[in-house]
């Protein structure tokens, strides 16, 4: 946590743009460079920046650990679930073409969108859980040192 006015203001100004860029990377990933992994890292970077500037407890108010841990599993389930749906619609595992019986191209698009979303959710959550675990330890150590 910092008292530096410039850092606090800049963080506040930048955060929405970082998040917007993360979403752009996420949903642009189907056609161009980007995708769930990169987007997840960028989104998590926004949280980390806030945690560094305003302290871990502030960010945890918005993102309780419980929710983020569910997120780590949810993304994987979304990815794998998409694969399973295509299996039960008569295709092979992860064969997105069958997701839309009228247009395989549209099915492929839908499939990759969902899969990348799953990757994005998991990567964001895992990044945040790892970093918040380390930061928590650092906070505990600092408090232990003073006491």
């Amino acid at each position, binding site marked *: 946590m910092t008292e530096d006015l410039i850092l606090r203001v800049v963080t506040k100004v930048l955060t929405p743009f970082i998040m917007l860029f993360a979403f752009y990377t996420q949903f642009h990933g189907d056609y161009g460079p980007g995708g769930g992994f990169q987007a997840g890292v960028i989104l998590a970077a926004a949280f980390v920046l806030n945690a560094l500037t305003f302290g871990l407890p502030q960010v945890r108010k918005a993102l309780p650990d419980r929710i983020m*841990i*569910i997120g780590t599993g*949810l993304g*994987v389930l979304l990815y794998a679930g998409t694969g399973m749906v295509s299996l039960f619609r008569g*295709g*092979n*595992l992860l064969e997105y073409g069958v997701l839309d019986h009228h247009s395989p191209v549209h099915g492929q698009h839908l499939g990759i969108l969902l899969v990348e979303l799953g990757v994005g959710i998991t990567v964001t959550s895992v990044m945040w859980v790892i970093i918040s675990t380390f930061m928590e330890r650092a906070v505990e150590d600092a408090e232990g040192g003073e006491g």
Partner: protein
Amino acid sequence: MSAETATDFSAHLPALAVMVPLMTAPLVVIFRNSKVAFGLSLAAAWSVFGMILKTLMLTLEHGGWVYELGGWKAPIGIVYNVDTVAAFVMLIVSGIGALVLSYAPMSVAREIPENRQTLFYSAFLLAMTGLLGMTITGDAFNVFVFLEISSLASYTLVAMGSSRNGFTAAYRYLIMGAIGGTFILIGIGLMYMMTGTLNMADLAERLPEVAHTRTIMASFAFVIVGAGLKLALWPMHTWLPNAYTYAPSVASAFISATGTKVMVYVMLRFVFGIYGTEFAFTELSLGLPFAVLGLGGIYAASTAAIFQTNFKRLLAYSSVGQIGYIVLGMSLATVGGLAAAILHLFNHAIMKAGLFMAAGHINHQVGSVRLADLEGIGRKMPITMGLIAIGGAGLIGVPLTVGFVSKWVLISALAEQDLWWVVGLALASSLLAVAYIWRFVEVAWIREPAPALEHVTEVPFWLWGPTAVMMTLSIVFGVWGAGTTEVAMEAARILLGVAA
């Protein structure tokens, strides 16, 4: 998937077998309740076992098939290469996983803090996913991906042990494992550089053209050393004893029985399925170093096992020795030798899983597996000790146990090649196993019970039941060795590309 089987849902079974534990692992994390976690994991493991059993039966009946993930044709897409060898190894992984999980709840409750139990189950399932995926995949890069999934999960499992030594053991395992994984990746990368493909069947087709380049020789060296590190080929086994000793009992039983075994299988796939017998054994004469390292491992590790003061570490060194027999079988590159190696994968997995589970009984009741703390325990825990005796007899190779069947097949294969001095060495090595098993028997039965063990009782049925099933299997497949031997022979013929 061929046209005839396209409508048959059972063609999807191998892919589902990988997906079920992969999807159960995050579910377990979401529910965050150790009882729910156990129930879900157990259901997942047994259903996977059923699917693999069906797959193995199908491959034995109709031969294998290729499953295209996402419907993309090889070599562009990733395919699963379903055949008897893969199904057999997956059966080992899922069967051991299911039995070990059936035994897990009490042992986990004793050894792992409450708030980490769900994560333990999740890591267990992920390790299983990785091992199953590595076995079934027909894509060289995909092997690496699943290898990392199973390895990272295994490091986590080892680190969850109740002793602080678990952390250093896991860290060492992580470093050595990461080096092994990276070497395999470099090897795959070099192959890709020369052939432009990652599909195993496609690689096997294109490699001979470029086999004489230094790049391919280097890739071969990287893959062999990397896989050797991961399967604890002596003398690259140093990460193994501590990892198995300090891991929670459930993790020791599962990893020792499956982790190194699947790596042996991966090595078999690369050496025989991709590089080819001729390249590996005629041009590069891999046979001699493998025979030397195999025998070296048998003698060095079995001797080290005799001098251990911790029962789990004794078993871990014995594992390194037993891997020596597998590598010795591989070194022959004949149907008999490979069959011996594959058969011992199965047989040793059963024995070692059972023994580590029995070590878990002791840890559950006594809180220690150091031999010094176990004096005279045989009278206090007769069932556990009986089970250990059966497992120990298997390690020695006493007739009517699985160990005997493996040794018999291995020795016939050696005799076929007129390698009589190796036969002698392999037979003599059984004496070392007698020595380290006797060491435990002597402590457990012949010494007077220590006063500290006065109140120790036998473990409840829910612990010894699954272990007893495992040990019963080791006798069933020891008496009825012909069946497993036939499957192993078939698997060896597929690997070598020889007609029956």
